[in-house]
């Protein structure tokens, strides 16, 4: 009873562990005692193997030609994995679209009736139905262009469709590669199998970038590349800043000095911007007069004058500002609502 308590058995691995047994320290005089020690170990090992075998042979077995076969329970000792868990493949663009639209996959027949030959043929693959290469005659359509070969058009169309599908496939695989869920047999050629994950794929320079570099090199000349002879296909250097325009100073035929007009326009703009500050003399004079009148009447009534003197002035200044702020606030509120 005591033994079974201390022996741990992992039947899935056919393993047994006896953690109670303790051996005395190594013998000093070797040759005689070492043999004894090994013998002891073997005895203990035999016991353990017997314990595992007891459990193993008592499992329900099925008879086979080669011998009795038992179903082992899964191992209980947890050991680390060798590789990460396989990651689920991300859905392709079509699969996502189909899900959003609720498109269901319908089974199609493998064999289809071929109208041209009057036989049943496979839908895809060798000797397929409606094969472009089997069509001897194409009926002319009203939309056909004169001089174009309808067979060539068909072939070109087919080629285009295949190319488009390949492009889509690559796009989906790239997405899968990003999620580390690329199928094991597929390799994207630009990323060679990284050995330790340190090597990055070399970046390919695009056509536009190359053009920009060529433009930069051209600016090394005195004219900034303006009067350089261009190679066929070479573009003008990129102009980063604003284009300045210098107008003629002298007056031309039927028109005044354009430069003067421009400067005038600028000046007017500036002046009009600050026009509200310019003094309206008449208004100021009347206001001054009114104030004076009021002051006099107040002075007659009571002696305290200084505070009353200031108040109306303040009010006059404040009112328009307040009004504006209130208006703004209300406008904002209206928007937010």
């Amino acid at each position: 009873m005591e033994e079974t308590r201390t022996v741990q058995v992992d039947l899935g691995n056919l393993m047994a562990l006896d953690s109670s047994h303790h051996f005395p320290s190594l013998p000093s005089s070797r040759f005689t005692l070492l043999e004894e020690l090994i013998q002891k170990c073997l005895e203990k090992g035999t016991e353990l193997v017997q314990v595992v075998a007891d459990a193993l042979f008592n499992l329900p077995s099925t008879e086979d030609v080669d011998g009795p076969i038992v179903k082992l329970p899964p191992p209980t000792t947890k050991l680390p994995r060798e590789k990460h868990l396989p990651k689920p493949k991300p859905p392709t663009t079509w699969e996502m679209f189909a899900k959003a639209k609720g498109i269901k996959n319908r089974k199609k027949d493998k064999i289809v009736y071929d109208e041209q030959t009057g036989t049943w043929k496979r839908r895809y693959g060798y000797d397929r139905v409606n094969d472009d290469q089997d069509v001897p005659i194409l009926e002319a359509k009203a939309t056909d262009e004169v001089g174009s070969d309808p067979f060539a058009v068909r072939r070109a169309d087919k080629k285009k469709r295949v190319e488009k599908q390949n492009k889509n496939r690559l796009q989906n695989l790239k997405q899968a590669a990003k999620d580390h869920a690329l199928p094991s047999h597929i390799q994207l050629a630009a990323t060679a199998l990284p050995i330790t994950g340190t090597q990055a794929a070399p970046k390919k320079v695009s056509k536009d970038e190359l053009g920009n570099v060529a433009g930069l090199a051209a600016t090394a000349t005195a004219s900034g590349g303006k009067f350089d002879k261009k190679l066929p296909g070479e573009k003008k250097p990129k102009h980063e800043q604003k284009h300045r325009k210098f107008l003629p100073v002298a007056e031309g035929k039927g028109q005044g000095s354009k430069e003067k007009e421009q400067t005038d326009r600028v000046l007017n703009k500036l002046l009009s911007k600050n026009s509200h500050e310019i003094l309206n003399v008449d208004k100021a004079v009347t206001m001054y007069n009114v104030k004076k009148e009021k002051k006099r009447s107040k002075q007659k009534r009571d002696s305290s004058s200084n505070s009353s003197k200031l108040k109306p002035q303040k009010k006059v200044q404040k009112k328009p500002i307040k009004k504006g702020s209130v208006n703004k606030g209300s406008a904002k509120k209206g928007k937010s609502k």
Partner: protein
Amino acid sequence: MMNIKTPKKGRIRRELEKRAPKLVETGKKTLILQGTKTSGLLNSVLTEIYHLKKESSVRYTRRNDNVRPFESGGDTSLEFFSQKTDCGMFVFGSHSKKRPDNLILGRMYDHHIYDLVEVGVENFKSMESFVYDKKLAPKMGSKPFIAFVGEGFESVEELKHLKEVLLDLFRGEVVENLNLAGIDRAYVCTALSSNRVLFTHCALRLKKSGTIVPRMELVEVGPSMDLVLRRHRLPNDGLRKEAMKTAADKPKKKEKNVSRDAIQGKIGKVYIPDQQLGDMNLPNKAKGVKRERREAKMNKQANGHPTKRQKAGSD
């Protein structure tokens, strides 16, 4: 622009599929290799470990200058070899004055070193030195019994680690069905002290005992050696957690419509949805059939029953 590269031959494709990560792993391949210098003893140790696990190991016999698993930078080529041979474990032998007859057992996770145990080999006895009835000799690839004896395997950290690594190294393929006629070997590992383990390989002799369970008898067939613990390196916690994930860890879906009864046993409810005839596929929905229908329609038109569309056209 990227290019899709796929193997042109089916054999290569199947080989790559074998290497892909799997939901349930059934065993690791072992890479057996050596460093710059080895001793004769170590050579035979490595060869015999290779013989023990011949069906699932790769033996590199050249010397490797830049493999030092415990040092930083000494693991690059080891990881490369692991990737190349698709091995999840390695046994690395080296011999130096400081560490004579040194054996490093290590495991890999995603072709990166997971953990390491370093042991020295002493009192080595090779397979040839044992005399026994050759009929008992274990067959290649048979599932072994593994017995660990000694309290050290529970209490001492290093021995606990070594036990796990030895189990991983020698347990063979993880199988569901086992043929009882095929069990013929056992490994016995005994912790003699806190840093010494006796490792032996035995054949099994099954004797009649009168019950279903036969009486087991161990016959030492070798190799046998003492493993003296030296250095060891455990994985960090994050890596361990990542590597211990199994498919079974994922929460199982609740079993619906199944109940259990003491008398009736397992009871299931079956719901039959309404039959939707509109969505159903016809047993023979070929194009030819459709065509016939179309032709019939055309005939009808010709006979003088103009359809709506035709009317609109005439107007």
